[in-house]
C-alpha cells in the first residue's frame, strides 16, 4: 500500500500502541521501549519530508474514515505546508524528550513514558485534523497527559501549576467548542449538509457572518491562551517551572505552537473580516508587541533559569503573532520558521536547564557562575543555543525574526520598529543569564566536579544544534515547502477584503 495512504493513520495509531506496550512491559524496560517507539515514530514520519509535494497548497496524505455519520463527524486528516513542519517537529522532539528524561524520571516510569506517547498522538492529531470535531477531541486529548506529566512528575508546586495549566486551556477550549458547534449548526441550516469538515466550514463560512465577531472571539480566546499572549500568559511560567524537563520541552516546543497554528488554520481563514478589521488588528498587534517587549523585560529579571526561558517564549511567540497578523508571504513564512525555531532552540534551552539542574540540583541562575571552565562543552552548547535564541545571523533565530519583521514592515512600520527592539532585549536577558551561569568568577567549589556532557546528552543536543545551524545557513528547503500553503492562505484571506473594498468604491475600477 502506498505510503501517502497510511502514514497519518500510522502516526496517530502507533504511539498509542507503543504506550500500551510500555504499560505491559517491566518497569526497568519502560524507557527503552519508549525510546524505540519514539524513534520508530520519527522514522515513520521522515519520508513526509520527501513525499510532500511543495508546489501545491492542497492537503496531502489526506485520509477519511466515517466516524459518526449521523452527525457528519468523520475522521479526516491531512497535511499541508503549514502543518507539515509541526508534525515533523513533534515526531523529532519526542525521541529527544524520552532521552532527556532518561535519568530525570525515577519513579512510575511506565506511566510516565506511556503518557508521553499518548501525548504524541494528541499533539499530532491537533496538527493533522481536518474535521473540527476531531480537532477538538485531539485538543482535549493532549491536555490530559500533559496535566499528569506536570501534576505527578513536577516540582514542589506542581499541583497548582497543573491545575492552572488545565483550567486556563480548558476555559479557552470550551468556548472554542461552543463556537465550533455554532458554526456547525448554522452551516447545517444553510446548506442542509451535516458535516464538521474543515473545508465545508471554510466554503460556507459566509453564513455565520452576523456572529463572526463572537465566534472569532471564542476561537481567539482558546488560541491566545495557548500561545500565550499577554495577558493570558501567567500559566506558562508556572507550568514550565514545575514541569519535568521533557514536559517543559514539549510544552514550549510543541504545545505552544498549537495556539499560533490554530490562528493560521482556523481563526484567521474563517473570519478574515474580523481578524483584519482595523480595531482588531490594532488590539492584536499591540498585544503582540507587549508580549515581545514585556516578555523580554520580565525574563531579564528572573532569578530562575527555567522561568527566564518561559518568559522568553512569550517574547518569541509575540513575533509569531505579529507575523501572522501582518499576513504577508514573508511574515507568515517567518512566523512558521519561528514556530519551528522556538521548538528547537527553546527546547534545547530547557534540556540544558534540566542538565544543569541534574548536576547542581538548583535552577537559580545565581547559584552557578564560572562553570565554563568546568564544563566547556556544555557551556559551548549553551552559548550557541542562547545565541540562536537571540537571533544571531547564521543561526535559525535570525531567519525567522528577519522574515517576520521584513514582512510586517510594509503593513505596520511603527509596530515593526518597536518589535525590532526586541532583538536588543533578547540580547539583554540571555547574555545576562549566560554570563551569570557560565562566566564570571567560579565561586562554588561544590560544582567543581560537575561532569561535562555525557554521550546521552550529546545525543539529545546534537540534533538540535544541527538544526539550529541548518535552518540558519540553508533554510530554503523549509521555506520552499511552506511557500505554496502560505501564499494560498494570504491570498484567500485578502480576497474577501479586496472584494469588500471594491464594493465600497462606487463603480468599481472606473
Amino acid at each position, binding site marked *: 500500500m502506498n505510503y501517502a495512504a497510511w502514514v497519518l493513520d500510522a502516526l496517530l495509531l502507533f504511539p498509542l500502541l507503543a504506550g500500551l506496550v510500555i504499560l505491559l512491559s517491566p518497569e526497568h524496560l519502560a524507557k527503552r521501549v519508549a525510546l524505540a517507539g519514539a524513534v520508530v515514530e520519527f522514522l515513520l514520519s521522515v519520508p513526509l519530508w520527501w513525499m510532500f509535494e511543495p508546489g501545491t497548497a492542497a492537503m496531502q496524505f489526506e485520509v477519511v474514515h466515517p466516524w459518526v455519520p449521523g452527525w457528519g463527524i468523520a475522521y479526516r486528516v491531512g497535511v499541508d505546508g503549514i502543518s507539515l513542519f509541526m508534525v515533523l517537529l513533534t515526531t523529532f522532539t519526542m525521541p529527544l524528550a524520552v532521552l532527556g528524561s532518561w535519568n530525570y524520571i525515577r519513579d512510575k516510569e511506565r506511566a510516565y513514558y506511556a503518557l508521553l506517547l499518548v501525548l504524541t498522538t494528541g499533539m499530532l492529531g491537533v496538527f493533522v485534523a481536518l474535521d473540527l470535531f476531531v480537532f477538538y477531541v485531539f485538543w482535549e486529548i493532549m491536555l490530559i497527559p500533559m496535566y499528569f506529566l506536570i501534576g505527578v512528575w513536577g516540582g514542589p508546586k506542581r499541583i497548582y501549576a497543573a491545575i492552572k495549566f488545565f483550567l486556563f486551556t480548558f476555559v479557552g477550549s470550551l468556548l472554542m467548542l461552543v463556537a465550533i458547534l455554532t458554526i456547525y449548526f448554522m452551516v447545517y441550516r444553510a446548506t442542509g449538509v451535516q458535516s464538521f469538515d474543515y473545508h465545508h466550514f471554510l466554503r460556507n463560512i459566509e453564513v455565520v457572518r452576523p456572529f463572526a465577531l463572537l465566534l472569532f472571539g471564542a476561537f481567539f480566546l482558546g488560541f491566545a491562551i495557548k500561545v500565550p499572549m499577554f495577558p493570558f500568559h501567567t500559566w506558562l511560567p508556572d507550568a514550565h517551572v514545575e514541569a519535568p524537563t521533557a514536559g517543559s520541552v514539549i510544552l514550549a516546543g510543541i504545545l505552544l505552537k498549537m495556539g499560533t497554528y490554530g490562528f493560521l488554520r482556523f481563526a484567521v481563514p474563517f473570519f478574515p473580516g474580523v481578524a483584519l478589521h482595523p480595531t482588531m488588528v490594532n488590539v492584536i498587534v499591540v498585544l503582540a508587541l507587549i508580549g515581545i517587549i514585556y516578555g523580554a523585560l520580565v525574563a531579564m529579571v528572573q532569578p530562575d533559569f527555567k522561568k527566564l526561558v518561559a518568559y522568553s517564549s512569550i517574547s518569541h511567540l509575540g513575533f509569531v503573532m505579529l507575523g501572522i497578523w501582518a499576513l504577508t508571504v514573508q511574515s507568515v513564512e517567518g512566523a512558521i520558521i519561528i514556530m519551528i525555531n522556538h521548538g528547537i532552540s527553546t527546547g534545547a534551552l530547557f534540556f540544558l536547564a534540566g542538565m544543569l539542574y541534574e548536576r547542581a540540583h538548583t535552577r537559580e541562575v545565581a547559584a552557578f557562575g564560572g562553570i565554563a571552565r568546568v564544563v566547556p562543552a556544555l557551556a559551548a552548547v549553551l552559548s550557541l543555543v542562547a545565541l540562536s535564541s537571540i537571533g*544571531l545571523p547564521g543561526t535559525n533565530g535570525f531567519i525567522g525574526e528577519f522574515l517576520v519583521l521584513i514582512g510586517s514592515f510594509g503593513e505596520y512600520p511603527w509596530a515593526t520598529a518597536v518589535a525590532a527592539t526586541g532583538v536588543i532585549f533578547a540580547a539583554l536577558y540571555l547574555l545576562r543569564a549566560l554570563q551569570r551561569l*557560565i562566566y564570571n568568577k567560579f565561586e562554588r567549589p561544590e560544582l567543581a566536579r560537575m561532569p561535562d556532557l555525557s554521550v546521552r546528552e550529546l545525543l539529545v543536543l546534537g540534533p538540535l544544534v544541527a538544526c539550529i545551524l541548518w535552518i540558519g545557513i540553508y533554510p530554503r528547503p523549509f521555506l520552499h515547502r511552506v511557500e505554496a500553503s502560505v501564499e494560498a492562505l494570504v491570498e484567500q484571506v485578502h480576497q474577501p477584503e479586496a472584494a469588500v473594498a471594491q464594493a465600497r468604491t462606487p463603480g468599481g475600477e472606473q
Partner: protein
Amino acid sequence: MPASVGWVWLVVLLPLAGFVANGALSLLRPEAKRAVSAIGVGVLVLSFLIAVGVVGGVATAAPHSPYVLTYWQWMPAGGLEIDLAFQVDQLSAVMLMVVTGVSMVIHIFSVGYMGDDPGYARYFAYLNLFVFFMLVLVLGANFPVMFVGWEGVGLCSYLLIGFWFENNAFADAGKKAFIMNRIGDFGFLIAMFMIFHAVGSLSFVEVFEAAPGTFEVGGTTITLITLALFLGCAGKSAQIPLYTWLPDAMAGPTPVSALIHAATMVTAGVYLVARTNVLFAIAPVSSFVVAAVGAATALFAATIALKQWDIKKVLAYSTVSQLGYMFMGVGVGAYAAGMFHLTTHAFFKALLFLGSGSVIHALHHAYHATHRHEDAQDMRNMGGLRRAMPWTTGFMWVATLAIAGVPLFSGFFSKDEILAMTFVRGHDAGAFYVLWMVGVVAALLTAFYMTRMMLYTFHGPNRTGEQERGHLREAPWVMTGPLLVLAVGSVFAGLLNLPAILPGSGWLHHWLEPVTEGSAAYLPDLHLGSDTEWMLLGLATVVAAAGILGAWNFLKPAQLKPAREAPVETGIQRVLLRKWYVDEIYDWLVVRPVMWMSDRAFWKVMDVKVIDGAFVNGSATVARALGWVGSRFQTGSVGVYLFLFVMGVLILMRAVIR
C-alpha cells in the same frame, strides 16, 4: 571574471575551518598548543595569499561593476530574494587586504603574547572565527549577508572581550559591547526593511542601481534609511552616543584590541558608509549628521584620552577619536579619504596596540617574577622603558608620529586629506568650516596625548619598582617581528593616496572610482587649489609639531608617582579621568530605570499581583467563596439531609399535583 576571483570562497572558508579545528582542540586537547598555532596562523597565511591573488585579479581586470558570486538561495520568500553571495570589487579588495593582512600579523604576534594562557586553543578558535565573520562582512553582496558578518564580528568581539571571563568586570565589558552593538544593529535592521520596501531588493548591485531613480535627493525615506544605517555604524564603530563600549572592550587580550577594536571590526561602520555611498550622497542631511557626529566624537574622545592612565584606555579613546575622523571623511563625501584613513589607521593603531601589548607583557612578567600585584597597564607604573625595550620604543614612536600627523608618515596624508575635503565643503556650507576647526583641534589634542603616552611609558625614570626593573625584557622576535611589518606599513601606507600636489597622487582615489562614481553626481566637486592645499599641509604640520612639542615641554614624567602612591585627581582632571561621567549618566538614565521597571513594575506588580493575583487567583478565590457558601448546607448530619430531602419531595409533590 579573472579565475583567481573565483577562489574568494576559500579566503572566507579557511578561517572557518581554523575555527572548527581549534574549537575542537580547545574542547578535546587544549594542551596541544603547537597544533593550535600551526592551524590558527596557517589558515590565515593561506587566506592572505589567496586574497592577494583575488585582489591581483581585480587589479588586472579593473572591472567597472562588481563581481558577484552567488552560492545558494538563502532566504527566498515571496518577493524577497536573498542569496548567499559574495561581491568582489575595488572597495572589498581594499578591505580584503587590510583584514587578511593585519589579521595574519596579529595572529603571529598572538603566538608569543598568549603562549602561556591556558585558553590558548579557545583564543585562536575565536580569533579565526572573527576573521571569518569579518570577511563575510566585507564580501557580502547584499545587506543581509553583510549583516551576518556584522553581527558575527560583534559576537567574536563579545567572546574575546570576555575571554578572561573569570573576571566579572571583563565579562560585563563583553556583554556591554554586544548589547551596545545590538542597539546599532537595530538601526541596521530597520534600514534593511525600509530599503526592501522602497526598492524591492536587498542586493547591493540592485539597490544602488535603483536608488537614484527611487529616492529623491534629500527625501524623507532616504534620509531615514541612511540615519538608521548610521545608527548601526555608530554602534559598531563606537561613535557618540554608543561609543562607551569600546574603552571597556580593552578588557580583552591586547592583540584582540589591536585586531578587532582598532584595525578591523570597528572600521566596519566606515566601510558600510563607503559601501552605501550612493544612498548617503542622495541624503545630504544624513551625510552632514555623519560628518558632524564624527567630528564631535573625534574631539570628545580626544579630551578623554588626555587624562587616562591606563595605556590601553589612551589607545582606545584614540581609536574612537580616529574613527570620528573617518566618519568625517565619508560624511563630507570623501569616501576614498575615509577608506584611506581606515587603511593607514589599521597599520599604526594595530602597531600601537601591539606595542603596548609587548609593554604590558614585559611588566606582567616582571611583576609575576616578584609576585607583586600591580597594574601592568597603568602608565604610572612604567617610565623609562626605552632602555629595556629599544625595539618596541622605536616602533611605537613610528606609530605615534604617524597618528600625530607628522609629515611623510602615513597618518599625515590620510588625516590631512579628510580635513582638506571638509574645508573644501565649507565653500558651499559654512557649517563644514566648524567641523574642520573641530578636526584641527582634535588633531592638536591627538599629537599631545600620544606624546604624553610615549613620554610616560618609555621616557623619564622607571617607576615599575626596584626589584622588578631587572626583570623587564624586550619581547621575543615572534612579537617584535609583526611590529616591524606594521611599522613599515605605518610609514609607507601614505603612498597609497598622496595629495594632488605631489607626483603619483590619488592612487586609492582612482582605484575606488568604480565604487564611488555613483555618488559623484550628487556631490560638489571636491577639488582644492594648490595654494590652499599647501596652506593646509603647512597648518597640519604646525598643529602636529605644536602638540608634540607642547607635551614634551609641559609634561614632567620625572614628577610622576607609581599608581599606588599617586594623589587623587581633582577638578577637570577628575572629570576627564572619569570620562565625563558618561557611563554613570547612562547607568542612571537607562540601565537602572529599565531594570527597576522590569523587576518591580512588570514582574512583581503587573505579572504577580495584577494578572496572577487579581485575575487568575482572584477568580479562583471567588469560586472557592461560592463553594464555601454552598458547603454550609453540608452539615454531615444524616438527619438534616433527610429532613431536607423529605421537604424537597413534599415541595415537588405540591408543585406537580395540582
